[in-house]
């Protein structure tokens, strides 16, 4: 029994509607439900799913992107009636409290109207659908506002044009697809609440920035600004690091910033040189980590090169504390690297061996399930270097790209925030249910030797990401135990004590459930690798014994 309802002129953002759809699908008697805006793509999807005129879909023909469409597939007419009512209730009720919470700040129906209410605004944060984001960004730049584009699906051409416009006005255009930034100590979008301090960060976006800012915070130093530039800013030659270079220039001038930290996937070659040159010329001590480069470039004071997010954060923290001259920095860098190696090695083999000893026969593969893309990459490079043949949807080696990202093969590290998983579904940082399902799958797989997870805190993320994952972890471990095996789970928590979820509380929940919580993603990955290695040795030994 299918039923369709179209509500004219009722706009809701897609994340909100995806969560409403999920809630609706969980209701009694509902086989399927879609609550979405009437975009051409969504209307096509509904047609493909067999929703037509018979269900009241004649209104669909006239529906536009500003109209809400509720489509339900239910056991019977009564259930359909109820489901439609529930859908309307969900969207309107949820708008209610938000609107009430909105008493704390003014609201308007347009950017121009909002600007009247906040005349000294200096930034526009844009999270509207990608098709409109570029236009809103351009309007904001023309109004003299800096812009952070959270939205993805902004074309390369638009990005280049917008960044040229921004640079010509001396304005910062963060993004597109910029998940996180910290400006003047205030977290934007998916950012952690880190203490203020002397480290200025420039990063592509996302969890790489979150990880380094949290590690800097945990090292007792703080962050002045953290600029998310968007994944293509350094990587794409045509964008040429326009935002990164402007941000570096700004941070070099910023009196609060004493140390710069640049994190990115490997930039286009010419762009990398420009970045390093800008840092060298700026003169403030700087740490660079180009994620995925096999060889670390040589340090040339004041620019130092790190080989992991953890090292990058540690070096930046060390420079913030060290003396101001090159010799002091070189000494600090050397000492930091020695310390990190020692910490990583300390007890690692022992604990890993102890965990591995409990594995059942056939358990041999590492399975990393990540919500954060950059931390997934970091884990992938570490695991690939140590174990080899690690498959992933983020693999740069085409031979090792997962044939089906929904199915692990051998050692696997999967980025669950990839588009493949997030079309029509909320990002795993917001809603852990997709990853939970995957945790259960890995638990059922007798070849899984260790689970590696990230738990991302901060604004924007799920209210209790650790808590929401515990049941799946317990069930996966029970499945392994039922087969006579054992499933070690390793995680790192990306967050701070000041985050709404609280680092300590989240870590404690995981540890209480038997999860090994490591102090950084790198350490978690190294630990998981160690278990996988031990498992391989063990299974060879056991195999030999048989």
């Amino acid at each position, binding site marked *: 029994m299918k039923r369709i309802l179209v509500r004219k002129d009722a706009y809701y953002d897609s994340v909100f509607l995806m969560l409403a759809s999920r809630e609706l699908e969980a209701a009694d008697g509902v086989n399927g439900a879609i609550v979405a805006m009437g975009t051409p793509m969504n209307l096509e999807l509904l047609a493909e799913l067999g929703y037509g005129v018979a269900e009241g879909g004649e209104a669909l023909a006239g529906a*536009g992107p500003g109209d809400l469409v509720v489509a339900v597939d239910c056991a019977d007419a009564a259930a359909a009636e109820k489901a439609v009512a529930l859908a309307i209730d969900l969207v309107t009720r949820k708008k209610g409290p938000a609107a009430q919470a909105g008493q704390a700040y003014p609201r308007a129906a347009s950017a121009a109207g909002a600007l009247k209410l906040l005349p000294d605004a200096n930034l526009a944060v844009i999270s509207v659908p990608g098709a409109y984001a570029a236009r809103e960004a351009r309007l904001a730049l023309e109004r003299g506002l800096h812009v952070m584009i959270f939205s993805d699906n902004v074309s390369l051409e638009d990005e280049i044009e917008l960044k040229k416009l921004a640079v010509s006005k001396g304005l910062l255009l963060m993004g597109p697809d910029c998940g996180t930034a910290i400006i003047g100590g205030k977290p*934007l979008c998916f950012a952690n609440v880190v203490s203020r301090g002397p480290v200025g960060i420039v990063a592509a976006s996302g969890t790489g920035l979150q990880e380094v800012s949290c590690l800097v915070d945990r090292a007792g130093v703080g962050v002045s600004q953290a600029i998310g530039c968007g994944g293509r800013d350094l990587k794409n030659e045509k964008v040429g690091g326009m935002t990164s270079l402007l941000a570096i220039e700004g941070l070099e001038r910023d009196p609060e910033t004493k140390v710069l930290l640049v994190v990115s996937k490997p930039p286009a070659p010419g762009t990398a040189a420009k970045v390093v040159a800008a840092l060298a010329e700026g003169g403030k001590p700087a740490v660079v980590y180009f994620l995925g480069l096999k060889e670390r470039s040589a340090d040339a004071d004041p620019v130092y090169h790190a080989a992991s997010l953890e090292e990058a954060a540690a070096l930046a923290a060390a420079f913030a504390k060290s003396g101001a001259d090159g010799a002091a920095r070189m000494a600090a860098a050397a000492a930091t690297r020695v310390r990190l190696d020692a910490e990583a090695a300390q007890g690692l083999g022992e604990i890993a061996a102890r965990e591995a000893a409990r594995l059942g026969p056939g358990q041999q593969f590492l399975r990393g399930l990540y919500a954060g893309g950059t931390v997934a990459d970091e884990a992938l490079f570490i695991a690939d270097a140590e174990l080899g043949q690690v498959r992933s949807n983020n693999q740069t080696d085409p031979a090792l790209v997962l044939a089906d990202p929904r199915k692990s093969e051998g050692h696997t590290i999967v980025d669950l925030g990839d588009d493949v998983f997030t079309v029509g579904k909320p990002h795993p940082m917001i809603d852990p249910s997709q990853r939970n399902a995957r945790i259960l799958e890995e638990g059922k797989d007798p070849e899984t030797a260790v689970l590696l997870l990230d738990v991302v805190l901060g604004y924007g993320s799920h209210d209790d990401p650790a808590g929401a994952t515990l049941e799946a972890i317990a069930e996966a471990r029970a499945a392994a135990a039922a087969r006579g095996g054992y499933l070690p789970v390793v995680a790192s928590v990306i967050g701070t004590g000041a985050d709404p979820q609280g680092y300590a509380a989240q870590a404690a929940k995981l540890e209480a459930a038997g999860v090994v919580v490591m102090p950084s993603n790198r350490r978690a990955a190294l630990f998981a690798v160690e278990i996988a290695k031990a498992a391989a040795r063990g299974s060879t030994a056991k195999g030999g014994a048989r």
Partner: protein
Amino acid sequence: MSARPIDSLFAEGPKALNLGLEKFAAALAREGAPVAQVEWKPPAGGDVRAIAALDRIASRATVDIDAANAEAVRRILAAKPTVIGIGVAKDVVPGMHRKLVLHAGPPVAWKDMSGPMRGAVMGGLIHEGLAKTGAEAEALAASGEIEFDSCHHHDSVGPMAGVMTASMPVWIVENKAFGNRAYCTLNEGLGKVLRYGAYGDEVQERLSWMRDSLAPILAEALKMRGPIDMTTVIAQVLQMGDEGHNRNRAGTSTIIRELAPHLVMVDAPKADISKVLAFLNANDHFFLNLTMPSAKCAVDAAAGIEGSTVITTMARNGTEFGIKLSGLPGRWFTGPASVVEGLYLPGYTAADAARDIGDSVITETSGIGGFAMAAAPAIVKFVGGSPADAIDVTLRMYEITLGESEQYRIPALDFRGTPTGIDARKVVETGILPAINTGIAHREPGVGMVGAGLVKPPENVFRDAIIAFAERYAK
């Protein structure tokens, strides 16, 4: 001190407009950063042609649109509508003749007219003695012998069906600031009336009485009283609970007060004068037919300004809703008239309702009516029930207008001026449609008013106007 924008961003921290996910605004507010939430919707409802037109207008207009609009708003705000007398349509209304029937809204052919409009046309023809019965009138209307035209093409406006014929008495309102005039018939009251499409004997008798007794007596009193400055009166009634369109109780009362001392001096039988006063007293909406031509002559002064995107006409004929832009004079942009969302008189439901009809939306065009909803707590049930809802309606209108009235002020908004000068660009960009109050006619001719409420104009008229504007001014 460096003046570079990035330096001040770093130093001051974010003061953000948040377009999209509300939780980002909530997080900033929680962290103590100033933030304003934009309740974002796809611009132009996602209509790519209209968005492209907006962008073209913004990037390569060949005229100074802002200057043109400033002039349009200046003229609307500077208007001095003044009631100078009552005349007979054929003597004063430009182009009026015996076989011409004027009607509300954009031009519409007889065959396309809605029930109430047809009834009113028939009633008008009977009133002129051109037909004796409804059937005769219908045949005559269809014969091609009768000319139909929009009131707006003759400096006139008419409520609901808005039918005006040659012998009808009309208010003459002059815009003293610009010298232009506007005309409107006298309001007939409620129940079975011509403007709702009734045309029977009761209606004919009243129309004759209005022509033969009411109008001469009022004209005489008005002559003694002298011209009435409508700006002052409207400014007063907005502070007495009227919004200038759907509630006219304060306005009608004020007009009675203005005229009463002179009415009693008119050389006519006491009984006739008493009947006039009783008629005014029984008809809350009497004042509407004064407000409408006042609004009409105010916005007319702003029509035809090269490059202006200000809306100078909105009107409905029961079949179509139409608008005109100042910078595109003579062009109507029309779309299907909508069904009014409203409250119904006992015994009637939405199934009885005719589609949106009447020129009374000229009041909103000039910045009162629905735009001044916050001034009229007595009728907030039309907009959701609470005074806060009414205030929201008016506040939203500031987002699509360019100016604020100096004269018309709203007590509940700390005497802020009413939102005036609708910019079609803003309507299209924000998707905020003008808030329009209206009465609801029965779909069948001759029944009358069945309710009142709010009407949503068809969005395409604003988009089409902007697309045409871009073609004309931003090729």
